[in-house]
């Protein structure tokens, strides 16, 4: 058994590497750019390691910034793979079933980025082993951060192992054994919701921060995730459709579009509810929202960002809703990129930074990320893109080959 595994595993890995590092000139340039950005990120991080987090733009008032903003947003993107798995496995949608593997690749890339952003944000990264349950001290179940560590790593395992198993079987020309992996697929549906609710609870559970301490934060996270995540998956699918031989049926684009529109509309509704709560009867607790939307005492760095985000968000949802191009990728692509960007603003810096301004003592400051922070962020984003590429490219090869050999996969 072990020998056959070795016999099958080694060529699998070899082939995967071969597929990943070969390709057209354009693809190789793309990889080189990613490497260059990763080097930039690595260099910026070494500066942060030697100087301390003073190299970033964070302070005792805005103690979380670009890193945690990106982490928060990307957990949502990772959870959004469930928006493909749910219809594929529970509603037995054959169209979406074909692209589940791509969704999972995106999820893994997003999750790797999340974990890296947390690590980059730590003041004492070499002491991260203090978190490990047996050798360190793990404050579970009291600390929501402890919960987050568990659910994120669990989700990563689910999203790596299940597709790996399926792909491995397909690579060797056989059907994966359904009863081995299907329970985990169903588990991953609920786990996806869990990772994003737990991440939302990180902020929701802090009475010290009234901007975050509201029960709508968890559901809002899910709604925005299920709009932004599928938007990204849509972009990835369009790229695959255009640049590879793996063709995506327009039905898939339509279904994804509908998912995005529904989730995006719910997200906007929740935004409206939050705005009403903060501004109908403003209290001292509304100051964070005032800072975000209108600026406070001359500090208004985020004001243009949030209004841009809301405008782009609304526009994108309306366009996707009315579907003027009838699922034409030429229209879908830029609109989805716009929506992704808009939600990245509102859920990243538009959530984290206002939650910390004003401070619990009412003190106001501005935050802008330093070059080190931006460098590390770019590096991690490049690494995540690289991971997604590394996972999807061999997956496409394997799936294409399997489909040619066996007709439609189960």
């Amino acid at each position, binding site marked *: 058994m072990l020998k056959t595994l070795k016999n099958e595993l080694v060529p699998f890995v070899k082939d995967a590497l071969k597929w990943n590092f070969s390709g057209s000139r354009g693809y190789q340039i793309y990889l080189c750019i990613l490497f260059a950005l990763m080097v930039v990120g690595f260099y910026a991080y070494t500066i942060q390691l030697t100087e301390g987090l003073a190299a970033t733009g964070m*302070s*005792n008032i805005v103690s979380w910034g670009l890193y945690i903003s990106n982490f928060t947003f990307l957990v949502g993107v990772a959870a959004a793979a469930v928006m493909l798995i749910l219809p594929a496995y529970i509603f037995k949608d054959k169209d979406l079933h074909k692209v589940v593997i791509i969704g999972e690749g995106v999820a893994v890339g997003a999750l790797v980025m999340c974990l890296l952003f947390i690590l980059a944000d730590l003041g004492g990264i070499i002491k991260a082993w203090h978190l490990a349950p047996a050798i360190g001290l793990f404050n*579970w179940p009291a600390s929501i951060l402890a919960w987050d560590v568990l659910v994120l790593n669990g989700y990563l395992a689910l999203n790596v192992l299940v597709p790996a198993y399926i792909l491995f079987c397909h690579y060797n020309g056989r059907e994966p054994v359904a009863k081995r992996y299907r329970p985990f697929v*169903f*588990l991953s549906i609920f786990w996806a919701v869990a990772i994003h609710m737990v991440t939302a609870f990180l902020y929701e559970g802090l009475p010290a921060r009234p901007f975050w301490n509201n029960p709508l934060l968890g559901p809002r996270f899910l709604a925005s995730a299920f709009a932004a995540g599928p938007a990204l998956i849509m972009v990835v699918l369009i790229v695959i459709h255009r640049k590879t031989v793996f063709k995506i049926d327009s039905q898939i684009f339509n279904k994804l579009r509908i998912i995005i529109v529904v989730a995006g509309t719910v997200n906007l509704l929740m935004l409206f509810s939050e705005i009403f709560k903060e501004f109908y009867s403003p209290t001292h607790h509304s100051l964070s929202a005032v800072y975000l939307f209108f600026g406070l005492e001359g500090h208004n760095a985020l004001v243009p960002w949030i209004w841009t985000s809301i405008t782009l968000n609304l526009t994108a949802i309306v366009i996707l809703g009315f579907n003027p191009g009838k699922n034409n990728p030429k229209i879908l692509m830029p609109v989805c990129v716009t929506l992704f960007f808009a939600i990245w603003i509102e859920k990243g810096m538009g959530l984290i930074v206002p939650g910390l301004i004003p401070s619990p003592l009412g003190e106001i400051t501005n935050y802008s990320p330093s070059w080190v922070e931006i460098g590390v962020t770019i590096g991690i984003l490049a690494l995540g893109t690289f991971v997604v590429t590394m996972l999807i490219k061999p997956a496409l090869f394997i799936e294409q080959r399997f489909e040619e050999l066996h007709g439609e996969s189960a």
Partner: protein
Amino acid sequence: MNVFKKVIPVLLVWGGMLLAFSGCEGVSGHQDVMELIKAADKPVESMKPTEALPSAPLVIVKEPYQGGPFYTQSRKSEIGRFQCSSCHTGKDVTINQAKEAAHGDIKLFHGAVDDPNACDTCHNLSDRDYLGTDSIAKIDFDHSYQLCGTCHFRQKKDWVGGAHGKRVQNWAGQRVVQNCTGCHNPHSPRFSKRWPATFSLPDSVLPDQEDEG
């Protein structure tokens, strides 16, 4: 059977979360501070401080205090020209410019603006080595609180109890408090305006980091 398989992971996750969250502190019984305080009604033996108090002469305060006898710092040893009766023998002081030389540094600014205290409001004119007036018994300089307390009786009650004034060095062990004159200049007791010892820059990380906007 198929439905059951789908339901099991759900139940596992929910059940696990319920179990785990029930272990959270919010549910378990934790006494709050007020309950702890109410329960602590028996006298507690105070710990002995490791560092001795600065060696200044102390006197025992002639006021009943809930924790037993307590001390304050002697004042007579601080006054340079004590004994006052060495100049004020009962007859007029005839030394040239003695008032400016001996008491020129005293600014009297105590009492109401339109009806301020005079020297003899507090100082005993018949016996200069004591405070008080002829109508109130002679009050020792070391026990000036008895005099201050005739007008400032609320502050005196608080000072005895501990809500006013300050302990010297230790919170534990033998209670030694500053006497009134330890903080207040008796002739001009109001704290004067001054500049603060420092200022705050709560959002600075490095000194050259500019506050944007």
